[in-house]
Structure formats: C-alpha cells, structure tokens
C-alpha cells in the first residue's frame, strides 16, 4: 500500500525543495538546439485553466462545447495557413506522435493506390524520432548522408529514389540550422517516383510568416506546439503534435476533426472518409491547444513573423560572436539555430564538449543540445530563441569565451565540472547496471 498521506505544508515544502533543484526557462537561458525553449507566456497558463475549458468532459453534447470546438476549428485553420496546407488534425499528443500520424497517413495513401511500399529515406542529420517512427510504421530506414554544404545532395537522393520508397522525411531548416536551398527540386524528385515528402516541423519557428512547408512541395508536416507556439515543455511534456496535410491526403487523417456547418455556423466533429482511425483517445491535448491558440491570437501575423525574424537574428548573432573561439561547422548565414564543434578544444586541450556543457551549468546557463546532429564531431547545437534579451545573449557569449579560455589554462576545472550544482556528475553506468527505478522497500 502507498504510504500515509502528508499534510499540505509537508507536500508544499517537499515540492518547493524539488523545485529549488530544478532549472527552467524562468531560471535562465536554455539554448537547446531544435527544442525552441522560448518563454512560456503566463496568460496561456491562465486561459487553459478557465473552468470553461479545463472542466469540459469529452463526451459532452456538441451543443454544450461550441466554444471549445470553435477554438479547435480556428486552430486547425490557423496552423494550415501558417504552414501552407489544406487540412489539420490536432489529435497527436507530441512531435513523435505527429510524425507517426503523418507517416501512417502517407502509408494509407499508398495502400489506397495498391502498394504500401517498403522504405523511407531520412537524412543522417535527422532527429532520432524520425528513424524510430519509420520502424513503428512498419517501414525500413534508408539514411542519406549530408553533403559538404550540410544539405541534402540532390543527385544522391535521386539515385536512392525508386518505387519502393514511400516517403522522404526532411527537417527544414535542417538540424544544422541550414535551409535546404534545393527544396523545390527535392520535393519534385520525390514526387516523380510517386513518393511523399514529410516535413519534420521541429524547426518551424524559423519560418513563421517567411516561407511555408506547403509552398515548398511538402505533402505533410507535424508541428510541435510546445516549441514554436510557446506551450511549456513541462519537464518532458505534455506537448502536442498537430499534423497538416495537402488536400490529397486529407481524407486519411485520424478523426475526429472539427468542421463548421456552412449554414448555421455551428461546429461539429467529423471523421474523414478514409481515416486511418484514432491515434489517441478523444481529441488531442486540448489544454495544450488552448495555450497555443492563445499565443497565436496574441501575436497575430505580424507578431509571428517578427518572432521568427528575431529567432534567426539572435542565432546568427551568437554564431558570429563565437566563431573565433569555436569551430562553427557551416559558417554562413543560419536560420534559428547553428551547430559548432568542440573539436578544436578536444584536440588542443583534451576537453570534450560534454565538459564544456557541464561547465556552463556553473555559469548558470543550461547547455546547448550536445553530440547532435551525429554527423558533427563534438557537436553543440545552439538555439537561443527570439525571447532572450540581448544582455543574456552577451552573457552567454562571455561564458562560452571564458570556458574556451579555461580549456587552455585549466582543463581540469572543465573535466571535473560542474562544481556549483545541487549534485555533480552522476554515475549513469551504475544506474544502468544496478537498476533502482522505484523505492519499493
């Protein structure tokens, strides 16, 4: 049996102690590449908690939830407009779940044409969820290496394309923070063999109001509302991973979607004709949808575009400020993030990227995404987001420069970092060998 209950004070103290051991966006800069750790506006938190949203039961008659359905209908439309597609499902619960949904929709389209096909091509820079999703959908993964520009090599891709290929999954801008300049030729080549192009929308924050995946020739896209649309990451979730598709694929989306009666303007659940079926119970992570919708209504078209521009400017600012101390891998204009390598520090001082990341903790910054993408040695993937103040960006640059200097003067302080955190480096090997995942004594 569970232990006896605790007093409210004991519970609040316990979680205050735990909170004090944690670091969030409110605590400091969180430049995790491809994670878009932007500020989480507080009005979103208030709105999703309104009784009119938070206490709704999913089986209530449609006539009693018109406000919720209107919100979902408008969010479907807004996301389709922002991404350049025709239809949206809000059901997927997370980015990987959205990838899964989109790939199953593509699979259904192939099956409708008589053949599910066998393989899905992904670049070697892809997020780990991409290949894992391919497997979950019953497909084989073929990996395409990036070229010296850090982009998809069109001739290489063409050589891989044939009628066994179900889809090409591409993140654009890619995980090196670079825009795939050949994108129109890429999507055309993929379509030429009857395959579909899926856009991993993890990096959509760079594109808002500037360019749209639908206009690039993609057939489907998933969107991480917990990245681009400011909903909080919650220490790992919940997120939401809506999927937008072309007209051609709309009939296969998971149901229900929200539609509007053209005559009396009321909102109703509808299920597409050849739906793949549900990917989740009920209608999606509604509480997250309310937050994202609130954010879009706050920013509007001009606010979204301004945010994307600033995200790109801030990333380029950091890239140019850090290029003397670190090896910026593709040192040209990037989008909302860039990747630099700790290879110089490793070679000259024996200091690894992991050591520098841990040292950043001592300076009060969350480290960038490290050792990803896999194609870059000792990678550090940096995404400042648009919401960080210039003073904070400059402080981050200072900290990185000090660390570069420490690598030369005193590498040991990096090897043994962090020094000032609630715990220091943890023994992960023992945790895997002598496994304790619950306190059952």
């Amino acid at each position, binding site marked *: 049996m569970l232990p006896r209950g605790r007093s409210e004070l004991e519970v609040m103290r316990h979680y205050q102690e735990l909170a004090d051991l944690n670091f969030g966006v409110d605590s400091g800069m969180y430049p995790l590449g491809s994670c878009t750790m932007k500020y989480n506006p507080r009005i979103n938190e208030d709105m999703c908690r309104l009784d009119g949203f938070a206490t709704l039961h999913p089986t209530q008659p449609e006539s009693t939830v018109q406000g919720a359905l209107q919100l979902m209908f408008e969010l479907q439309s807004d996301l389709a407009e922002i991404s350049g597609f025709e239809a949206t499902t809000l059901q997927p*619960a997370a980015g990987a779940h959205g990838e899964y949904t989109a790939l199953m929709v593509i699979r259904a389209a192939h099956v409708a044409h008589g053949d599910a096909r066998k393989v899905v091509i992904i670049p070697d820079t892809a997020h780990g969820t991409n290949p894992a999703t391919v497997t979950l959908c019953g497909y084989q993964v073929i990996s395409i290496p990036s070229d010296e520009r850090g982009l998809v090599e069109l001739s290489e891709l063409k050589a891989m394309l044939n009628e066994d290929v179900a889809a090409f999954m591409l993140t654009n801008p890619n995980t090196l923070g670079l825009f795939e300049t050949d*994108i129109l030729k890429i999507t055309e080549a993929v379509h030429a063999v009857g395959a579909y192009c899926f856009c991993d929308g993890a990096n959509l924050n760079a594109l808002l109001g500037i360019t749209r995946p639908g206009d690039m020739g993609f057939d489907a896209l998933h969107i991480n509302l917990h990245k681009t649309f400011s909903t909080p*990451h919650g220490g790992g979730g919940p997120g939401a991973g809506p999927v937008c598709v072309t007209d051609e694929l709309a009939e296969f989306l998971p149901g229900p979607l929200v539609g509007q009666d053209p005559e009396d303007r009321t909102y109703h659940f509808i299920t597409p004709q050849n739906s793949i079926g549900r990917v989740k119970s009920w209608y999606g992570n509604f509480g997250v949808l309310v937050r994202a919708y609130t954010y879009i209504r706050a920013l509007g078209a001009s606010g979204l575009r301004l945010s994307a521009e600033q995200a790109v400017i801030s990333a380029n600012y950091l890239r140019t400020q850090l290029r003397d101390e670190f090896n910026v891998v593709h040192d040209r204009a990037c989008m909302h993030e860039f990747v630099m390598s700790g290879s110089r520090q490793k070679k000259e001082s024996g200091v690894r990227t992991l050591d520098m990341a841990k040292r950043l903790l001592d300076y009060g910054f969350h480290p960038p995404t490290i050792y990803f993408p896999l194609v870059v040695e000792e990678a550090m993937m940096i995404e400042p987001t648009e919401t960080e103040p210039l003073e904070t960006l400059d402080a981050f640059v200072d900290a990185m420069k000090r660390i570069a200097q420490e690598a030369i003067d005193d590498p040991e302080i990096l090897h043994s970092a962090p020094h000032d955190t609630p715990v220091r480096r943890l023994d992960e090997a023992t945790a895997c060998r002598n496994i304790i995942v619950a306190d059952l004594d």
Partner: protein
Amino acid sequence: MDYLSIQPEQRTLMLDAIGVADFDELIGEIPESIRLDRELEIGGGLDELELSRFMRSLASKNINCTQLISFAGAGCYDHYIPSCIDHILRKPEFFTAYTPYQPEFSQGTLQAIFEYQTSICILTGMQVANASMYDGATALAEAALMTVRASRNKRTEILASQTLHPQYLEVLDTYALSGLMQVRVVSFEDLAEAIDENTASILVGYPNFIGAIENIASVITSAHEKGSLAVVCANPMMLALLDSPGSLGADIVVGEAQCFGNPQSFGGPGLGYFAATDKLMRLMPGRIVGRTTDVDGKDGFVLTLSTREQHIRREKATSNICSNHALNALAAGAYLRYVGGDGLLEIALTCVQKAHRLSSELMSTGLFEPAYEDEYGYEFALTYLGEHKLEKIYNTLVEQRFLPGVLIDDKTILIAVTEKRTEEEIDAFVKAVRHAA
C-alpha cells in the same frame, strides 16, 4: 503583442554585428519563389486585456462541468483536485523545464518522476514503471507491441477483450496497420479459448469499459499456460480497492491516470501510465528514471536505460516516444503523496458507495436493469427498459444541467459517480430521471 525582449535599436545593432545590411540578407538561401509575399491570414495581434476578454468569451460559450452535475466517465473522471496540486504545477522550475537530460540541473523533475514511478509500482504490484505515456489508449497500444517484441516477433497476434474502451480498441487497430501486429477482438468469455501459439498477449480491462470487474486472474493464468503474456488496462483509482494486477500475475499494467490530480480538459492531456515486471524492463517504451550517486557519493537521479530510446538507438528503439506527459505525472505523484494510501482508499470507497447507491435508486425507478451481473466499482452500465431511445431522456437531462453519463447505444448508459457528487445531487438526478422518462 509579442514576447520579445530585444528592442528595435538592438536589432539593428545585432544585424551590424553579424555583418549584414538587413534581415533579408540572412535568409538569402530561401528561394524567392517560395517566400511568402503577403501577411499570414490569421486573426489576432491582441493585447493582453483584449486577449483575456476574447478567450473568456470563448470559454463562456461552453457549458462546463462546474455548471453541470456530471455522471460522465468512460476513462475521464470528475474527481476533486486538491488546491495544492495546481500550485505545485505552476512552479516555473517544473513547468518551464525541458526533459531532464542534464541531471545536474534537473534533480527536481527526476526525483518527482522517481516518486511517481514508485507510486505506480505500488498500486499496480509491478516492479518497474516508466515516466509516463500520452494516455491510456497509446499506453495500451505500446504494451501490445512490446509483447510482440518480447516473443522476439515469433508471436504477432494480440487478443483484445471486447470489453476494453472502444477508443482504445480503435487506437490498437491504427497501430496494427503497420503490420507489426494483428489485433483480434474477442469477447472476454472466449479469450482463454482463443489463445494459441501465435498469441503474443491478451489485453483485458480492470474494471472493463462498462465498469464490470471480470475474473481476470483465470484468463491471466490461461495466457501464461499457453506461453502468452497478459496486459491489464486498469483504472488506477480502483487499484486502491482491488487486488493488484501484479498479484494476479499480470506482465504489463497500463491505463489512464487522469483521475489522479489532472483536470478533465476535454479529454487531454491525460496521463498514460505504464508498468511491467522487471523481466520485461529493457523492452519498455519511454523514459525511466533511476537512482544513482554523483562523483562525491551523493544520492541523485538520472534517466536510465536510455539505450532503449530513439535518441540513442534510432530505428532500433523500443518506441519513437520522446515527449511524454511528465507534468501530468508530476500532478499524479503530488496527488498520491498528499492523499496517501489511506486517503486514496477513502476516496475510492466513497465513489463506490455513492455509485452503488445511485445504481440501486435508478433501478428502483423500474426504468432500468443492470447491463451485466459482475461486480462494479464507481462506474456501471444500465439498460433502459422503456420503449423509445435513451437519447431523448439524456437530452432532457442535459437541458436541466445534468451530464447523465455516456450513451453506449440506444438503450445503454454508462454512469460514473465520483466523490464530488453530493447526496442531494444524486437525489435530484434520480428525481429528474423519473420525470424525464
């Protein structure tokens, strides 16, 4: 409105520092032909006051469950959420944090999840629980796939009890489209008989979708006798009262834990919980927190067994799950810590007693009979004996601000009673049903 901190003149300074004349120079690699030459056609650009008014007006177009007397369940329940839970969730150190990949900065999240895993293990009678799944439906689908892997893909058929949540069965069907497993839906009574050498696992509800507590112990035994695994999908609130699935031999226990401190929120985000025997631990999907020590010998927590996961193992990962429902798990962990085993027992008992009282009073109207003979907890199904469709009564009751339950078909309604329903509300509901019929 926007949430930028950088001022226009700072933007100019930054462009100068980068060495470009204007923003367009930074996006030179985007072909002209795909640049959007207009503004996005979306509404908005509201200031915070306008935004708040607008969102409140949208919310007020709904009739919510503080205005309705709800007897609806079907996996999403109107339990009371103690005030302190949301105050914990609103701590920015928790809700604005990322996944705890940097453990030195994330001990709060990690310890909270470890404590949640512990509570789930105790309730289910299992040895290991993960850090959460999206919801009960996806947890069940992932459990089914895991049992195929456990057979090294030698057994690929899943036998799912017909009395599981219909939406969970739909999600299973979607996940089976990949060809990685085949799902056959069988009545609970026929499950044991249907197991053969291709059966990876049987899936049963506990209680089942319509609230019945079926004899899952015997079908679990049959599964094991024929070399198959048993997955139990349980309402965890009821586990305060029932024998734990682990004690009955379950190999995997999953379900929806929205009932622990999470709002209904129109059905999401909920909380999928996932627990298994330690034998199956390395095949589990999702993140798992483990306890270890740091270089100074101090106790601490880390994400462990990561080599199962997509960011390490890529196409060979046990699942593609990355984001999970950590904040909902934090709510559940805090709820269970606050109410404790004693409190949970009391809450579950109160629900069950109130449900039994309502059931017998509705029966005494002569309008209904039980849909089944099994024992039930705080949710039960009744068959309407009248001539017309039950929907008519349902609609009349909604007009009177009752949410009478969930209609399963023309004659059957599924009714849940939580601790929030007062004696007066139950009496008023019975009276309203009499009048409506």
